[in-house]
């Protein structure tokens, strides 16, 4: 077995309550690393087109990668892969916490959960004894994710759902500790299987090819992170919420269901404000991560709980035109406890508010008014009253009530909190990302509009190139499985510290902006490992991984997801943005919205796809992608 892998796949059949341990497929591991890549390959190979995402044929795949189980910073995530009930296409999400670590300690790389249990069940796995126990979970059914995990105790690592998953809210997630595999409705798929929780334990150690090199290099990386302006400073101080004022200043903070990109009340929902006014001094972290981007807040009646992330503050704050941090803290708690993705939840709520504003449908909540939101979130989790409609997400609501032009989703997945009209590459990324409107399948905005580089995010230069490179990179990162925030460390400290008006900084930005093809060439070169994650992979597995290797593997995974979507009937027509993003201008320097029509053909060309967005045979052959 390749080093870094436990070498085992656990197959669980919930209908027969049987399980088997099978050897990990080394060919898949070599070609797709693990995590999201491995899971996507399994999903593609094992399922027929057109299955019901909430039916028994949809497998729920939990997958780790070779970095999990090590002490490498940020190497604590597992991927969940299945067909998405929200989009009807590829579904996946990753999650921090300690569950990935638990899987590797149990000597298991991948768990495939098939079919459905007739009644609520939970699974306990002891990897040392090769035991898998199916336990009646009626006593836990209906409980929130906090209480469920509390009842399950601290001895094992858990992945659980809350009422939202049980009730098949289409954007329900799977929770481990305080973290959530939030996107695409993976929690609803777990709920459809009547599976409340998987708990896992073991005491196996990860075998590495060169443990000494790994150990000494990891020490270096910890120092590098400590010293980095993002990973060692701003993320540590403000968490992801540190970006609220930046997106607001750049006019891309979603406000009033993306009607505007600036919110006057942004300061009071910012990370800096939270640090001074709200935080209880506790910064939390996923296992083995020195970044500690989580932060705790206190809410009435519940005590100290996890505070909101940037996406929550934006989608459930500015996007609802509500600057009441205390209220958002409570909503965030409810969403976490119900086990719901706050991005989809926020954009579905803002859609409901705009429906009301236009006199189309009244869910009882309005822009700028916190009244009623708390109760509605609980109603969504339990699918009660108006909550039952909002639980289906913005796309399905727009199909029922109308309002397609202001339903803020791509392929059915609600869009994240970076308005693409001020971040063109991010817009291309939203439009083309296989799981839909998401920012952590590439994070192009960091390279063009919010990070330390100051390229013009509103011209055509590099706007089709950046998404390709970043999406490939993210596919690889999500397969190792590392936290995507590691990419924020890719721009070195020296650039962060330069005066953005200095000659040197301008020169770097100009060179960067004008070197699209060269950049693709440079990143595509197979040479020595340079970045920390390339070196870790190399030390752990014994195989050389450089940027070129990861671009190739990432490209293979991305194209496989694409082929999966095409098989499910999601074509190039779905590579679009909400009409509001394309037609309505929020910047004086633009007559219209995002210029996707101009950028998409370029993107397809770089990808090696035809004019309809279908990968060419030569592209698939080059990637050695069998479909």
């Amino acid at each position, binding site marked *: 077995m390749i080093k870094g892998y436990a070498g085992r796949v656990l197959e669980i059949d919930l209908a027969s309550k049987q399980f088997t341990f099978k050897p990990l497929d080394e060919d898949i591991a070599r070609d797709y690393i693990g995590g999201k890549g491995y899971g996507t390959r399994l999903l593609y190979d094992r399922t027929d087109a057109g299955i019901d995402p909430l039916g028994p044929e949809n497998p729920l795949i939990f997958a780790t990668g070779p970095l999990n189980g090590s002490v490498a910073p940020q190497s604590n995530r597992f991927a969940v892969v299945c067909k998405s009930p929200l989009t009807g296409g590829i579904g996946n999400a990753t999650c921090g916490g300690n569950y990935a670590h638990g899987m590797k300690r149990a000597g298991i790389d991948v768990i495939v959960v098939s079919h459905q249990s007739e009644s609520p069940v939970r699974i306990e796995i002891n990897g040392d004894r090769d035991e898998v126990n199916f336990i009646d979970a009626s006593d836990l059914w209906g409980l929130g994710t906090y209480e469920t995990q509390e009842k399950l105790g601290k001895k094992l690592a858990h992945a659980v759902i809350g009422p939202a998953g049980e009730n098949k809210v289409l954007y329900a997630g799977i929770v481990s500790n305080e973290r959530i595999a939030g996107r695409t409705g993976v929690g609803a798929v777990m709920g459809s299987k009547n599976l409340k929780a998987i708990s896992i334990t073991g005491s196996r150690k990860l075998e590495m090819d060169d443990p000494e090199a790994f150990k000494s290099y990891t020490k270096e990386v910890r120092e590098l992170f400590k010293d980095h302006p*993002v990973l060692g400073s701003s993320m540590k101080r403000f968490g992801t919420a*540190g970006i609220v004022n930046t997106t607001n*200043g750049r*006019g891309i903070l979603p406000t009033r269901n993306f009607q505007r990109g*600036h919110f006057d009340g942004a300061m009071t929902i910012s990370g800096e404000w939270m640090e001074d006014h709200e935080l209880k001094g506790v910064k939390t972290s996923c296992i083995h991560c020195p970044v500690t*981007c989580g932060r705790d807040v206190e809410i009435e009646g519940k005590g100290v709980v996890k505070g909101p992330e940037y996406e929550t503050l934006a989608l459930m704050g500015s996007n609802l035109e509500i600057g009441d941090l205390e209220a958002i803290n409570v909503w965030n708690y409810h969403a976490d406890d119900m086990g719901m993705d706050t991005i989809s939840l926020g954009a579905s709520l803002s859609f409901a508010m705009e429906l009301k504003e236009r006199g189309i449908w009244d869910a009882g909540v309005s822009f700028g008014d916190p009244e009623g939101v708390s109760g509605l979130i609980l109603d969504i989790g339990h699918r009660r009253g108006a909550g039952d409609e909002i639980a289906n997400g913005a796309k399905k609501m727009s199909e029922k009530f109308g309002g397609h032009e202001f339903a803020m989703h791509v392929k059915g997945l609600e869009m994240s909190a970076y308005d693409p009209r001020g971040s063109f590459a991010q817009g291309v990324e939203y439009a083309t990302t296989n799981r839909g409107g998401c920012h952590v399948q590439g994070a192009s905005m960091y390279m063009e509009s919010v990070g330390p580089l100051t390229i013009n995010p509103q011209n055509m230069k590099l706007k089709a190139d950046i998404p390709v490179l970043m999406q490939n990179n993210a596919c690889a990162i999500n397969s190792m499985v590392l936290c995507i*925030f590691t990419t924020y460390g890719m721009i070195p400290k020296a650039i*962060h510290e330069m005066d*953005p008006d200095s000659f040197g900084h301008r020169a770097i930005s100009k060179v960067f902006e004008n070197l699209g093809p060269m950049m693709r060439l440079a990143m595509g070169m197979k040479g020595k490992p340079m970045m920390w994650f390339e070196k870790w992979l190399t030390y752990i597995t014994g195989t050389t991984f450089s940027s070129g290797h990861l671009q190739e593997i990432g490209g293979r995974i991305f194209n496989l997801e694409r082929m999966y979507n095409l098989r499910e009937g999601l074509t190039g027509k779905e590579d679009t943005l909400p009409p509001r993003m394309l037609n309505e201008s929020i910047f004086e*320097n633009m007559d219209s919205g995002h210029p996707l029509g101009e950028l998409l053909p370029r993107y397809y060309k770089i990808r090696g796809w035809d004019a309809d967005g279908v990968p060419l045979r030569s592209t698939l052959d080059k990637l050695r992608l069998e479909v």
Partner: protein
Amino acid sequence: MSIQVELTYDMGKAIGEHRFEVEAAATVADVVEQTRQRFKEGGDEFAKLAHVTRVAVNGVLVKHSKGMKTALKDGDRVGFVKASAGG
């Protein structure tokens, strides 16, 4: 004529206000100068914070238009923005 000025958190903390209006400012340079005035003795502090800060008018960095000479009109918003990363 009224221009809305928005400072970064640290800048605002240094002078005790994050948002304020300036009445007469023809260009971005005028706003920067008036903001500097507000810092009074804290001019050094402003310079230090401005060093890693970009200036945007209505969300667009002035370096992509006419820089400090960018002309302003009534109701414009001039923001000091730092680079950041979120998720």
